[in-house]
């Protein structure tokens, strides 16, 4: 053991024999670490942005339906069947779950909106004006007017829909919808607000009504809802949280289906896992490049010391001992680089996380996989990225030392001294 410590000391001293070279190599690795963590962080930020834009607008991160509601969305398949369920207690049961931030009930219907001469088919969505803003941003996407007040027969419609109907704030809109009893529900609603979400499918087709108003229009009791939308702490955790909620709700008499956004928007989930996988490629590429730089430096270092190694060999040291000291040099270099890398990475990461770079002035937003994407470069903290990058750095410095170490063991005592 004492012998081993000696080799560590030899490695340490050898590193500092050429201070400048070691510092340059270490800073190369440290900046590699910074680069890897930041690139993964920015990419993660884009992912979270994408998920949140895909979920926070309308979808939510987890949804609860009656087990036979999806995919047909038959209006009769409310949670709890014809009887429905005690809404307040059902919602509070859900929100009592750890990781559930908020939950909001919804009712859906299909029907016609008519204003003046114009008539358009619309998807009617009944929302709770108090709870909905806690789970989605839909009600805040108003370009004009205000949000809904329950029980006042008010309606919000998308900007495209408003244009097609030629409707302006304050207009009376006739809403016609097939009711749950087979009759044709119809009533007048006042247009109080116009939504612009940037998603054409919503702006063209959706009309929002207060939950009790739509229930009344469709001859459904206040206990009947189609959907509970839930937001959770971390969107990436949704499948796990949905699973826990499914377990939790399975003991009640209500046959419900719990879906996470990954089930509801599989194309978005696939994109996320694809980008997640690409993080490893980024780390491999960055440290792969660094590895050759480190190997080069250390190879030169060992060639310079050929005579030295030959003397040590001649004094009776086993070749493995010489190889070991070179590998130790690599490990010590890795530790130094890691400390330096962490010291420069953390302040930048914290600063970037708290003040994301807004590129709105350079490029406008666009939609990816049906989700609106803000051109904001934000960085997400992640546990995984720094650890993976640290492992990458460490492996790099050890692997890069392997070849020089092997070369060092091949130095024959007599031959080298003869040079």
């Amino acid at each position, binding site marked *: 053991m004492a012998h081993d410590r000696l080799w560590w000391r030899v490695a340490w001293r050898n590193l500092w024999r050429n201070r400048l070279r070691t510092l340059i190599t270490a800073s190369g690795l440290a900046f590699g670490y910074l680069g890897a963590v930041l690139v993964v962080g920015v990419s993660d930020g884009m992912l979270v942005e994408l998920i949140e834009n895909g979920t926070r607008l309308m979808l939510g991160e987890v949804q609860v339906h009656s087990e036979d509601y999806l995919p047909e969305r038959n209006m*009769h398949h409310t949670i709890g069947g014809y009887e429905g369920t005690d809404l307040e207690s059902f919602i509070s049961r859900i929100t009592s779950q750890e990781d559930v931030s908020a939950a909001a009930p919804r009712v859906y219907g299909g029907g*016609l909106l*008519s204003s003046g*001469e114009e*008539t*358009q*088919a619309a998807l009617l969505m009944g929302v709770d004006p108090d709870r909905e803003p806690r789970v989605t941003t839909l009600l805040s996407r108003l370009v004009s007017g205000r949000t809904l007040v329950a029980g006042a027969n008010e309606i919000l419609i998308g900007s495209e829909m408003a244009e097609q109907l030629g409707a302006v704030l304050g207009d009376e809109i*006739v809403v*016609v919808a*097939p009711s*749950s*009893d*087979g*009759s*044709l529900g*119809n*009533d*007048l609603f006042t247009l109080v607000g116009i939504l612009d979400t940037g998603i054409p499918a919503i702006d063209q087709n959706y009309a929002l009504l207060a939950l009790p108003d739509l229930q009344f229009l469709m001859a459904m009791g206040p206990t009947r809802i189609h959907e509970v939308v839930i937001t959770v702490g971390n969107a990436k955790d949704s499948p796990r949280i949905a699973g826990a909620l499914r377990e939790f709700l399975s003991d009640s008499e209500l046959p419900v289906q719990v879906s996470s956004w990954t089930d509801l928007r599989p194309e978005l989930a696939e994109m996320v896992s694809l980008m997640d996988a690409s993080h490893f490629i980024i780390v491999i590429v960055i440290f792969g490049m660094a590895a050759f730089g480190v190997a080069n430096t250390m190879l030169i270092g060992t060639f310079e010391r050929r005579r030295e190694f030959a003397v040590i060999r001649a004094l009776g040291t086993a070749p493995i001992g010489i190889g070991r000291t070179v590998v130790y040099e690599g490990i010590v270099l890795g530790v130094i680089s890691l400390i330096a890398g962490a010291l420069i990475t953390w302040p930048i990461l914290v600063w970037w996380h708290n003040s994301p770079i807004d590129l709105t002035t350079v490029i406008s937003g666009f939609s990816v996989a049906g989700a609106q994407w803000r051109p904001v470069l934000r960085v997400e903290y992640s546990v995984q990225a720094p650890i993976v990058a640290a492992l990458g750095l460490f492996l790099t410095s050890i692997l890069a030392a392997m070849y020089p170490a092997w070369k060092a063991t091949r130095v024959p005592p007599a031959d080298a001294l003869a040079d």
Partner: protein
Amino acid sequence: MHGIRRYWTVRTLVTQLLNTSLLVLLSSPLQAQTAREIIDRVDRLLRGESSRGRITMEITTEHWSRSLDMEVWSLGVEHSLVRVQSPAREAGTATLKAGQEVWNYLPRVDRTIKVPPSLMMGSWMGSHFTNDDLVKESRIVDDYDFEISFEGEREGVEVWEFQLTPRPEAPVVWGRIDEQVRKADLMPTWVRYYDEDGGLVRTMTFSGYRTMGDRLVPASMLVIPADKPEEHTVLTYHELDFGISLDESFFSLRNLRARR
């Protein structure tokens, strides 16, 4: 002569088909014995025969069932008006068909609403008929090719069976329509509607053949959707008169709104 006869038999079928639609059911040219008579009747029909009737529509679905009493007027194949009389909650609700357009009147909000193209395939009054059923019949002559797929005896009755296939350019929703017509009195017995993949979508069955007004009609019509065989809509005529004095101005939006 045979060719002409056949042609006009098909024309008669066409008018029969017109009649299979709930609103136009009223204007059957029936008991046609010869090709000449059929020609006369069809021409008169297409020139604008008028009718008035009272019907009951019973709808049964998986989730609810209901019955509506309605009064129906028609003029030729282009115009019809239906007004709900009971239940009281829905009395006054009315549908106007004028050409290719369908309008609804909603007494509760006192508005008329034109059914947009996107909802033409939607249910009419919650029944198993679509809004499109109201308008499409007047175009069937233009949109389909007709052929006799069977001629002979079925369950002891001499019948023709026709197969209607849409013309290549026709803007239609069905991939094929089959219809059976009794030879003796030209009464339709059933019509089957198929989608573009050849799958059965719904079956219409006629019964209760009796003389109403001045002619024989199937007083009852049953529609069963193929994907939900436990659901159905039954339309039954209680009264039916032909040749009443109506003109096109009766089928106006103003009259649609008039509460009775």
